[in-house]
């Protein structure tokens, strides 16, 4: 209570002092607070002397000189800014620059976002729009984003084809890249998710196929077809799931020449779809001494009535013939690799009398018949088109592959056409026939035997396989018959030559007999000579490649 009063009293006293009163006047007026006011008023009186101090004229003059020098120094341009360009103008210019940059960035972003195939910024858009997939950590989410982006590319591709009549390579590549990335991400997911992603990729393939059919330019159609095949292969690969560790990576089913004889059906049997004979696994245990081959229905060939799992998945949307071929590929891929074994079968006359006899020298007349079965991996629409020009398979003469005479044995080879679109299938499992050429000393480094198709005229009546029937099967090979999965493929009735359905959907017509034609005598008794249709085992799904006239006969 006293302090505010004292502050107010002090202020009153100071005002009195400034007005000309003395300290005594103030203390007399505030006698109660005189003791407290006295030192404060004494200090105030001393402080009032401050008001009398001032700079002298000389000090002011010196100061003015110093200030003028400073002003003269300040007026000299010492900045990088041009004269007349003040700080305000610099700020204005900076703001204008920033605004221009923002405007440019906005325009660029909008241009890229609205770019279409063929535009300058479309490639950048394709790259940028895949960025969200990289942010996703979960493979499922990443696969979903990849497929979604791929669908966006597909829509742009469709629009571009409809408007420009051409397929944008950028969009096509982006679409396939998205599908591929989605498949890679989804490969480790559960089966339902894989199936879902595979279905979406398959839809892409179907849409591309439709686009290819609707395309007017051949190049565009070809590119779209290739892309469709690629997408379909991706879907199939994804549908099959990740490869199991037990499954060997190499799928090269080999066939022995004895297969021809072993697989030679009875006349009544050739008309039916028959499983392809495949050699029995060597690890299956000891074999009987009997040379009679046993028909083993392996899991390589699906049951004729059983539909592959993808058919149930995709239903009628997928063309059947092409799907079949693809399914076969899948099945074969999962097979363990069978080591190339001797395949050539010596003729019966060269068969030693008993086991343990040394192999006979090669005989030029020795003939081995090899049936190379073919696989058609064409999609349905291609196969349908080609089927119009495809002669009926049953009437087709049976080509025989004749080994070089230097081998000392002739191998009759029925080569069938393998047609596959590039990129349609995974790395083709090549079927190699590796006839054993006997001891190394007798092996001749022959190249692959030339295909020597038998003339058509000689096919039905002649017995091109008779000679091959003379060749006895090697006792170590027990080809199993793999049933043809879809005997009605290409609409051709399985005849004698078409009895053996495709079991090897090789993407290439890899018909590479090993350079070791097995010419050794088999310790086992030879098979009985089959009938005229002994070599009619291979089914022809597609037309044969052009044959060289000189090789006939």
């Amino acid at each position: 209570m006293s302090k505010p009063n004292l502050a107010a009293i002090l202020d009153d006293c100071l005002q009195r002092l400034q007005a000309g009163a003395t300290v005594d006047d103030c203390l007399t007026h505030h006698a109660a607070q005189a003791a407290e006011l006295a030192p404060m008023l004494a200090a105030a009186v001393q402080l009032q002397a401050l008001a009398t101090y001032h700079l002298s004229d000389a000090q002011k003059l010196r100061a003015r000189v110093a200030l003028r020098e400073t002003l003269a120094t300040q007026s000299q341009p010492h900045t990088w800014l041009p004269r007349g360009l003040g700080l305000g103008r610099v700020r204005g210019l900076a703001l204008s620059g920033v605004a221009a940059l923002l405007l440019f960035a906005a325009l660029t972003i909008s241009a890229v976002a609205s770019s279409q195939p063929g535009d300058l910024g479309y490639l950048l858009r394709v790259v940028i729009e895949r960025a969200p997939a990289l942010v996703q950590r979960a493979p499922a989410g990443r696969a979903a984003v990849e497929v979604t982006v791929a669908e966006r590319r597909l829509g742009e591709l469709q629009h571009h084809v409809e408007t420009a009549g051409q397929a944008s390579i950028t969009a096509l590549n982006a679409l396939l890249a998205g599908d591929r990335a989605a498949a890679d991400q989804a490969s480790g997911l559960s089966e339902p998710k894989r199936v879902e992603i595979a279905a979406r990729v398959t839809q892409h393939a179907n849409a591309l196929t439709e686009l290819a059919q609707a395309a007017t330019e051949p190049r565009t159609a070809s590119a779209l077809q290739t892309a469709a095949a690629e997408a379909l292969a991706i879907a199939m690969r994804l549908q099959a799931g990740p490869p199991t560790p037990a499954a060997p990576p190499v799928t090269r089913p080999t066939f022995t020449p004895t297969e021809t004889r072993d697989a030679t059906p009875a006349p009544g049997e050739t008309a039916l779809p028959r499983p392809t004979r495949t050699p029995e696994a060597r690890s299956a245990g000891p074999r009987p001494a009997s040379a009679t081959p046993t028909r083993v229905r392996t899991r390589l060939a699906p049951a004729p009535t059983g539909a592959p799992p993808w058919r149930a998945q995709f239903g009628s949307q997928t063309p059947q013939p092409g799907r079949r071929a693809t399914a076969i590929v899948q099945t074969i891929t999962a097979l363990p690799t069978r080591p190339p074994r001797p395949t050539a079968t010596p003729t019966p006359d060269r068969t030693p009398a008993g086991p343990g006899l040394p192999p006979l020298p090669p005989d030029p007349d020795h003939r081995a018949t090899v049936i190379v079965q073919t696989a058609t991996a064409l999609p349905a629409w291609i196969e349908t088109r080609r089927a119009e020009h495809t002669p009926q398979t049953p009437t087709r003469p049976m080509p025989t592959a004749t080994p070089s005479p230097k081998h000392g044995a002739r191998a009759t080879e029925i080569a069938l056409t393998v047609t596959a679109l590039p990129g349609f299938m995974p790395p083709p499992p090549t079927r190699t026939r590796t006839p054993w050429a006997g001891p190394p000393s007798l092996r001749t480094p022959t190249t692959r035997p030339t295909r020597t198709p038998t003339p058509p005229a000689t096919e039905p009546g002649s017995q091109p396989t008779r000679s091959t029937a003379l060749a006895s099967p090697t006792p170590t090979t027990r080809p199993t018959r793999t049933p043809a999965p879809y005997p009605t493929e290409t609409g051709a009735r399985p005849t004698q030559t078409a009895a053996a359905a495709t079991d090897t959907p090789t993407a290439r017509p890899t018909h590479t007999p090993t350079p070791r034609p097995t010419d050794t005598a088999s310790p086992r008794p030879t098979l009985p000579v089959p009938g005229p249709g002994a070599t009619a085992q291979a089914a022809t799904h597609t037309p044969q490649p052009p044959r060289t006239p000189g090789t006939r006969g």
Partner: protein
Amino acid sequence: MDRPGKISDTCENWATTRISRADSSLISVSKAMHPKIGDEQITALLPRCQSGEAAAVEALYDLYADRLYRYLLARTGNSDVAADLTTELFVRVIKYVGGFRLNRHRPAASFSAWLYRIAANLVTDQRRAQRRLPQVSLEDEWPMPAHNPDPHHVVERQETLVRLSQALSALSEDQRLVIIGKFGEEMSNAEIAATLGKSEGAVKSLQHRALRALGRLLGAELRQENAEYV
């Protein structure tokens, strides 16, 4: 409260002596020497100073030089140092006035506050430099022949300045500004409050605390002097 009569009498005598010396006419003269600075003056001068006009800078110097000199004198206790610092202060004003933004609501008060802030920084820099390199005034070592007919008065003023600067150094910056504004520039409480951005009550409180501290410090010195004489 029963105070020692000697001390009380001494204080009263000291105050009476000082008051008796105080010339009431000097106060009225000082009021005439320190005219109030209007907002219009600052608003008119400042843009010209910012553009580097020498006349405007000199006009500004004329307005504020003595006020800032008294502040610097009260802080340093040396007239020559205060004069040099005043010149240095305006040099800094010329350098940095381009970046000063005037408060449109109280132009003069904001500009004064900016100047006093520069002055306070100068004093701080000067003391720091003096600590590194002690300086001795030539006048202290070799007193020049006095042009003043009353050399005793000159010495007394110098001693008073030193005591005041030492006492002011014990105050806070707000208290110093209030005291110097009140007694150096004879500003009213309202003007000080506007300059400092405080209320008049706060100014009165600061003034009371500052004077109480100064009275205690200056009274102790006076008692010591009296004790020496007794």
